[in-house]
Structures are given as C-alpha cells and as structure tokens.
C-alpha cells in the first residue's frame, strides 16, 4: 500500500441504498484485506452491483460508513479513481478503437507512462493489440477491460461479473489473468453469480441476497457455519431410514433412495451401520459426505442460480 496507515483497502458498515421501496442494499458490513481476492456472490438483484458501484464512487450511498483506501469514494471520487481499477459489468468501449490505442488513451488521462505491450501480455491479449474493439470476441473485450483497469497501477481492482456470458474457455482465460494479478499481490473485489468462480479465485466470500449479506468468510468457514456438517449416506429404502431412526435416535433423512444420517460424533457412523445390518433389509453403497459451497448457497438464498444469474426457486 502506498499509504502505510491503511490496513484494509475496503471497510464498510451498515451500508444502505434504497430505490423507493426496493432495498437494494440493506445494512451490510464487510472488510477487504490488502492482497486478498474477495468475492461478492449472489443471484441477480441481490445488491452486488449497487454495492460495488458505491465503492467505486459511481453511486451515492443513502447511509452507513464506506471507506475505500481510507477515503469516502463519493466525496473523493477523483482521488479514489486515481488508485482503483474497474471493469464494469459488460465492459464496453469505443467501437473503432484498438486495445493498444485504448491503453494509450488511459495513460494520457491518468498522466502515467506505461508499456502497452507489457499490459497486453499481462492480460493475454498481445495478439489482438491492434484489432478494433468491435471485432474482438466477448472474452477479448473483457481482457481489454482488464488491461485498461491496470493502466494506473491500481492498489485495488473491482471486477464486476467479469466472466458473465462468456464461454467456458474464455472464462478460464480470464481466471488465468485474475490468478496472475493475485500472485502479484493486487487486492481484488470480484462479484459473480458463479459459485465455481468464487471458489476457484477468492480467498474470502460474502454471499448476498435481497440486499443482505447472509454469510461471509472463507469457503470452509461458510460451509462449517451454514452447512449441515458431515453425514453418512447409505443407498437404501425409506423403511431402512425409519428403522435406523427408531433404533438409534439419530437424525435421519430419506430422499430418492438415499438414507442420510447426520454425524455429530464419529461413533454415530458405527451405530447407524449396526442398525442397518440388524434391519435385515437390503442396503448398498456407503459413503460420508460434507456440504459443498453449492449446497450451502442453495440453502441460504433459497434456490439455485442459473447461467444468467437469475434465481430459480426450488
């Protein structure tokens, strides 16, 4: 950090932003530490972009505390913009401008000297340096956005849904770039509705839903706090589930041919298996399982999120 006193690049607490009756952001609190990749996860309309735009100084908050690099981003927009890099959702640029020209424009605007080729190498776009924006593919356009966000050597990067709408190969290419930036110690705030993206790239995650943060921490912490813990799964019938439940008093669920027993202590597994054996009923494969981030997410936002980020209630 240029300013030695600032420990956390982002600190927000009790942040609120309402649009009429819609509570887009309703009292959220989180901190992003220097050098980490922090992911804001949630379905469309959860309040991710509003939060990000308030942090970028593009929207005015209604109330609460917001500090970006120690400054209020709305009141000190210019100073904050000099030190952050941003790719907005669906990055767009002047159609008839090439990545190299765009980087030169940004260098002039920020009054910095940069090596355009080096930046283009960093985002894996050097082979399209002179291709006009309207001839770039979706993934290449996003890479150009990444390149521009790096021109002013930012202390903090905001990537708002950087891979939405891209094919799997383009997504992986963007991930590579983000990993490279992380390796260089950049602090990155990432919003996404892709769970795998958050899990692959981020150190910590905050899950947003209806303007609230419903969970935050590392993936493991969230799974530990909000998951159902370890369980034993046995392929078997509903009768088997009833038998185990009645003979052991354990917490047993049955769903589609799978009997699931919550394991609060190691011995619970043995107790359940003995009950299964004594039932004289047929039973098949056994395994222990733990909730994934997906399972927790589905439980927390009460639904699954499709490719476009829309919530599908189960």
């Amino acid at each position, binding site marked *: 950090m240029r300013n030695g006193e600032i420990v956390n690049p982002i600190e927000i607490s009790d942040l609120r932003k309402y649009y009429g009756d819609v509570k887009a952001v309703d009292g959220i609190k989180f901190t992003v530490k220097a050098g980490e990749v922090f992911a804001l996860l949630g379905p469309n309309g959860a309040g991710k972009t509003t939060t990000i735009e308030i942090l*970028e*100084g*593009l*929207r*005015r908050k209604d109330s609460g505390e917001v500090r970006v690099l120690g400054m209020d981003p*709305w*009141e*000190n*927009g*210019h100073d904050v*913009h*000099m030190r*952050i890099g*941003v790719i*907005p*959702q*669906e*990055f*767009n*640029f*002047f*159609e*008839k*401008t090439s990545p190299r*020209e*765009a980087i*030169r*424009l*940004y260098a*002039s*605007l*920020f*009054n910095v000297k940069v090596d355009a080729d080096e930046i283009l190498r960093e985002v894996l776009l050097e082979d399209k340096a002179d291709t*006009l924006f309207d001839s770039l593919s979706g993934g290449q356009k996003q890479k150009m956005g990444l390149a521009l966000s790096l021109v002013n050597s930012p202390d903090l990067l905001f990537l708002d849904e950087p891979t939405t709408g891209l094919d799997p190969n383009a997504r992986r290419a963007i991930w590579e770039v983000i990993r490279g930036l992380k390796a260089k110690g950049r602090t990155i705030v990432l919003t996404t509705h892709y769970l795998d993206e958050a899990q692959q790239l981020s150190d910590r995650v905050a899950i947003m839903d209806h303007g609230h943060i419903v969970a935050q921490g590392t993936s493991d912490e969230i799974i530990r706090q909000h998951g159902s813990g370890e369980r034993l799964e046995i392929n078997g019938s509903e009768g088997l589930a009833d038998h185990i439940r009645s003979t052991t008093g354990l917490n047993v669920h049955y769903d589609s041919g799978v009997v699931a027993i919550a394991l609060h202590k190691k011995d619970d597994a043995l107790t359940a298996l003995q009950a299964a054996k004594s039932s004289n009923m047929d039973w098949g494969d056994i395994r222990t399982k733990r909730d994934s981030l997906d399972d927790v997410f589905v439980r927390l936002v009460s639904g699954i999120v499709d490719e476009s980020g829309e919530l599908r209630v189960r």
Partner: protein
Amino acid sequence: MANKTNGGIISGRRILADFKVYSRGYLRNRFGLFFGLIFPVILILIFGAIFSGTSTGKVTAYVQNNDTGPFATPQMDVAGQFVTALNSSGTLDLVMVPTSEDMPQYLANHSASDGIIIPAGFSASYLAEQRVNVTVYGNPSSSTSSIVSGTVGGLANYFNLQRFNGTSVIGLEPATLNAEQTKYIDFLIPGLIGFSILVSPMFSLVNISSEYKKTKLFKQLSLTPLTKMEWLISKVLWYIVLSSVSFLLMVGVGIMAFGAHVTLTIWLVPFLVLGPTLFAALGMLVGTVSKNPESAGVAGNIVTFPMMFLSGTFFPISIMPDYLQGLAHVLPLFYVIEGLNNVMVYGNIGAALIDLAVILVITAVVFVAAVWFFKWRED
C-alpha cells in the same frame, strides 16, 4: 462538488487524448464520414445542377421615390400613383426608403437584393412624354427578383398604355448590387454550410450521448480523470474541425463546378466555431434528457428536421408564408445561415454581428443546460 470529484481544472492533455481517439474513430467510420463531408457536397452538386425556383407569395421590395415634387395638383404626382399601384399589385410588400439613403448600400445593410428607384423628375418627364427609367435592383437568377422586375415592368406598360397608346415612356433599368452577377449557387452555399454545421454534430451527439448512457460508456469514462466538460469540449473541437473541412470542400466545389462568387473573410470564423458548438451541445442536451437511444433519435429528428428545412437552407425564407417566417426566427440555424449570407453574399458585417450575438446567447444557454443535465454519475 464537481471540482472535488472530477479533479478540478480543465486539462488540455486529457482533451487532446480524447479528441485523438474520437476523431480516429470517426474517420474509421465510413457512415459518419459520408454524412460529415461527402453528403453536403453531393447536395451542392444536386441543388446547383437543378437550379430552379418558382415562388408564390409576396416579395419584399425596397422602394425609393426620389420624385418628391412639389406638384401643382395631386394628379400630377405620377410617381406617387406609380408607388400606390405597385403596392396594390398584390405581389410586392413595399418598404419605403428615405431619399437620403444610398440605395445599394441600404439594400446591403438590410441583406436584401430587391429594390426599386423612382428618379427625381419622374412625374414631370412622364407628363412631358420624355423617356424616364425606373431602376430595378435584383438578383437576376433569384425567383424573387423576377417577380419584382415583372411587376414593375407590367406596371410601366400599363402606365405607358394608359396615356401614350403604348409608346414606351417609362422604361426599366435593371441593376444588380454587386458588380458580379449573384447566382442561386451563391445563396445555396451558405445555406448548405449551415446544413452541414447542423447535421453532423447534432445527430452524432444525440446518438452517442444516449448510446453511451445505455452501454455504460459514460460510467466507464467517469472512472478516469476525464471530466464531462473535457469530454464535451473534445467533441466540440472535432466538429469545428469537421465543419471547417466541410466548409472548404463545399466552397471549393461551388466555385469550381458552378463558378460561385462568395466572399471569404475572417468573419466566417466565428460562425464556424460557434455553429458546431451550439449544435453539438444541443445534440448532447437532447440525447441526455432522453430515456433511451430510440426516443433520443425521435427527439433529435423533431428538433433537427424543421430547422433543416425552415432556416433558409435550401431556399430563401422570404418565399415562405408569414407564420413560417416567424417560426424560422426562433430556429437557431436561421441565424447561422442568415449570418453566413450576410458575410459571404452581402458583405454586411453589421447585420452578421447581430446574428453572431444571437447565436452566442443561444449557444451559452444550450451549453450550460447540456452540461447541467449531463450526468457522469448517478445518485
């Protein structure tokens, strides 16, 4: 707050950087280039070639009656009767010019070409059957001038017939304002320059200011130190350059293809600077207050098209009905074209300065409004 959030003072470096990218993008876009430079030249060629114009409606004619008497009886004031007859002809609106004025100068000062001089001693000569000429000023190729000379000629015939059985006593002496003959193309060039000053900046700014809002390009730019004022200035600069190039092309084609006679002076510069500034700002205002690019396009057309046709672009507004002429006077383009005509055709700098003052005021108001309504960021 603008200073605090946008970094304060206007930076020439940032304007130049944005100017370079925008102008390069413009030149790479064949569509914009066609409408900016080629289309006005095509219009010059088409209208210059067609060169025609019939008109109805009354034509304003300036009349100087130098035959002031004294007359023994009212019947002996033939000059007065001639003027009364001109007035009741139904084709002319007469404006009386004091005898102390120099007619050519007076016409130039009023940016007019149609004038009639009745010489001193007209009545006495007529009554004595001595030949006497009425001088008719006009632009021989303009439809208004032929109406004036036709009316005066017809009336002279009537007066001749009435008293002398057709012996030609009253004759016509045609005259033009400039030593050189003024042609339709000379009036067409300022009109079409006004057209090009209007169309390119107006349509482009309506389009980009609504499109950039929709595609969030303004949001993208607002994350850099570029301010909205710098952004607008760089656009204005580009359209000044484009309009100047277009101006040179049109004047060049007008002179080479049609032998046009236009006066090129330093007084054209303020029009070539203020005109594009006005219409770029107006385009941005329309684009900014519109909800989406589609409604911006409609609003842009509603503002642009009446201006395009009613400001004296393709034909003089004097042939339009009175209410349309009144409407023309509230259209900013009218003052641009009138000013260009005053400089290029009539050499009437005094009147051009008034046009310039009107344009300056409108430009200032529109520019401030455009910057005011234009939001880089949202609340």
